[in-house]
């Protein structure tokens, strides 16, 4: 089938200083990934088209893009899912550097601000694993799936309006440790997220949950963090 691709272009270095769109007609299978189409355009039609990608099956988080107006990983959405007219744009709310490539540093800086690592220096005297029940492990399973692709944060209308908002992905990664029975720094993370740009900036739009390619219940995780800020954590 013939697919009509409309792709966002921006490259000040080459004189494309204002955002515009290029269009390409590409022969595709319904089961092709949108990433396959971008690779085809780059290989055969325009080598200057620029985007990030690596694993090509939805686990590395490189290729979050806005496809027909909503965030996907380009490698995890197929032509049959989005139709024959496909518009590809960079994710919103982070500075665009070139075509689909955005500056990810603000995103990772926010992530690093919530102590995204286990805090607990005590280990069993026998050197073996700490015990954790299946139920305790299940408590934070959903948020361990995050691949830091930024699809959630850059789908959030609060983040679009206020780039200082810590964003859903950061809260998800705080959640992953706050509800881990082995961790000892929940109160510090909750303190960080109780601030003006923290969890309560969330207006429960659910865009993040819809955008997450890992199907994490992002809005629910944020709600659980809000509750924990108010009334503490029960592990």
């Amino acid at each position, binding site marked *: 089938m013939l697919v009509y691709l409309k792709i966002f272009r921006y490259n000040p270095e080459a004189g494309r200083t204002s955002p515009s769109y290029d269009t390409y007609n590409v022969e595709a299978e319904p089961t092709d990934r949108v990433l396959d189409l971008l690779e085809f355009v780059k290989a055969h039609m325009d080598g200057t088209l620029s985007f990030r990608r690596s*694993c090509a099956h939805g686990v*590395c988080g490189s290729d979050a893009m806005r496809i027909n107006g909503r965030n996907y990983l380009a490698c995890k959405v197929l032509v049959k899912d989005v139709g024959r007219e496909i518009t590809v744009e960079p994710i919103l709310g982070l500075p665009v550097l070139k075509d689909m490539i955005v500056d990810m540093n603000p995103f990772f800086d926010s992530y690093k601000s919530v102590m995204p*690592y*286990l805090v607990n220096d005590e280990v069993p005297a026998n050197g073996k694993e700490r015990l954790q029940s299946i139920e305790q492990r299940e408590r934070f399973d959903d948020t361990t799936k995050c691949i830091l692709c930024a699809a959630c944060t850059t789908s959030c209308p609060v983040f679009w309006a206020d780039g200082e908002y810590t964003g859903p992905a950061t809260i998800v990664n705080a959640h992953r440790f706050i509800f881990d029975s082995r961790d000892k720094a929940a109160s510090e993370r909750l303190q960080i997220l109780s601030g003006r740009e923290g969890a309560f900036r969330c207006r429960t739009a659910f865009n993040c949950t819809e955008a997450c390619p890992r199907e994490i219940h992002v809005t629910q995780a944020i709600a659980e963090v809000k509750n924990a800020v108010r009334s503490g954590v029960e592990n």
Partner: protein
Amino acid sequence: MVQHHQHEVVIVGAGGAGLMAALYASKAADTAVLSKLYPTRSHTGAAQGGVGAALGNLEPDKTDWHAFDTVKGADYLGDQDAIEFMCAEAVPIVYELEHMGLPFSRTKDGRIAQRRFGGHTNNETKQPVLRSCYAADRTGHMILQTLYQQCIKNKVRFYDEFHVLDLLLRDGIANGVVAVELATGDLHVFHAKAVVFATGGHGRAWEVTSNAYAYTGDGVAITMRRGIPAEDMEFFQFHPTGIRRMGILITEGVRGEGGVLVNGKGERFMERYAPTVKDLASRDVVSRAMNLEIKAGNGIDGKRYLHLDMRPEIVNKYAEMDGRKNPDGTPYRVTGEQLLAKVPDIIDFARTYMNVDPITEPMPVQPTAHYAMGGIPTNMRAEVLIDSKNTVMPGLYAAGEVACVSVHGANRLGTNSLLDILVFGKEAGLRAAEYAKGAQYKPLDDDPTAFTREQLDRLLKNTGGEKVVTISEEMKVKMMDDVGVFRSEAGMSSAVDKLRELRQRYKKVSVEDQGRKFNTDLLNAWELGCLLDVALVTAAGALARQESRGAHAREDFPKRDDANWMRHTLAWLDGDAVRLDYKPVAVTKYQPMERVY
């Protein structure tokens, strides 16, 4: 513009091996990590089924059994001293990961859960053993995230999206690397006392692969261009269960949980090829069996694929026939819900990419190019070796898939790659820092970026002529057809000729993007040059090896030949010529035996 940096230890690559090296090196020395991606994009994150360690959490297991299984899986080409070291280190290093916060799946009594995997056995009963420590089917993701989290905690210095293009040497000692910063196009010289390569593999040389776009053999190619040999490159693993045509990995854990391979006649054919462990034989054995079934016309509808069936009723039927028991002695039975909890990502991949629900339908699969057993020669201290006498190059280390210790020999067991990156990543970090603390910075040459500029300028200045995509596709098809699961003299000769032709044509390759910022067009072209170099030594090493061993299966030499070939290949690339030499395998207590599963 060229920028200069100085760090005692420079680590190239930020997957599991690079991050583990970084955690250990940064405790003792000024350390920097360079990655052409963001660290969390590294291919370690795609590993699924688990990391092997004889914890014995659910049934008796021993480090010695793990070592023997690895030696046997390697078809007696692994260095046994290194294998014994790795399998002994496995147990404490898995506990260390748990201490770092890795969210392992748990047993009913709260310990690390373990599952069956191909080639891992109870050496007394010969039956599969629960050895793979897992976090659902996301074990690599959890390892990558956990190690990155620890690096943040320990304030490790990262240079994200810095693509290393050259290794710097002075008087036979490593003293730095050259990288291009993707965001600016600037070249950066990193002056170092010790350099660690942890750049991963090169499965992108084949048409159907489980590997990321980033897996282009950079590390082996860069070191070969600086006169360092590559070891055992002819051994490249095809994983039995890639998604048909796409090659995306379906973990062996599916078979560990009871899934079976089925041919077009509805037969569970592995019981004919590996009567004892059946679907859980080593990957080389299973991939060959699949190709033989397909060749015999037993593919699904006669086509070039088979079914991987994990429907609960099928799993339970064969578990009953095999008499499979749970650790508590009750019969092994599963429900769809339990399988969903054990391998959730696999079910997601199947639904997304194949439109198949594995709980109600079988999955179409075919062998997929997966893992490089060969790579930069190292010893078990992760020091790089430059000849058949095992001479060490001071200041240079390698770990993970890019390295050849060799712990995987002719065929790697599932779960041993995650183990390898942890154990030898740690060694590389410890040894590099230790060396750096006792060493001076060796002066840089006057123009350290000359060789890098020469390579990039040629690609940028070429006009017309050849396209990257054409050469790349011709290479991938040739490697798939003639340097794949089964090989022959005629096929490999023609592959060597074809790769020589492609390397000539590559000299005329041009790139369209003439900019500096995020010039992925240019870097894709540079990566193709790496793949061509790596593919050529792979084909040349394979052609020379006149036997069948592990992943190297020759139609014209179907038997293993220990008298002549129980030795490692070393390959040097001099222009278009590949020079080969050989060195002995380290043997401790495991004498070669016939390999049956």
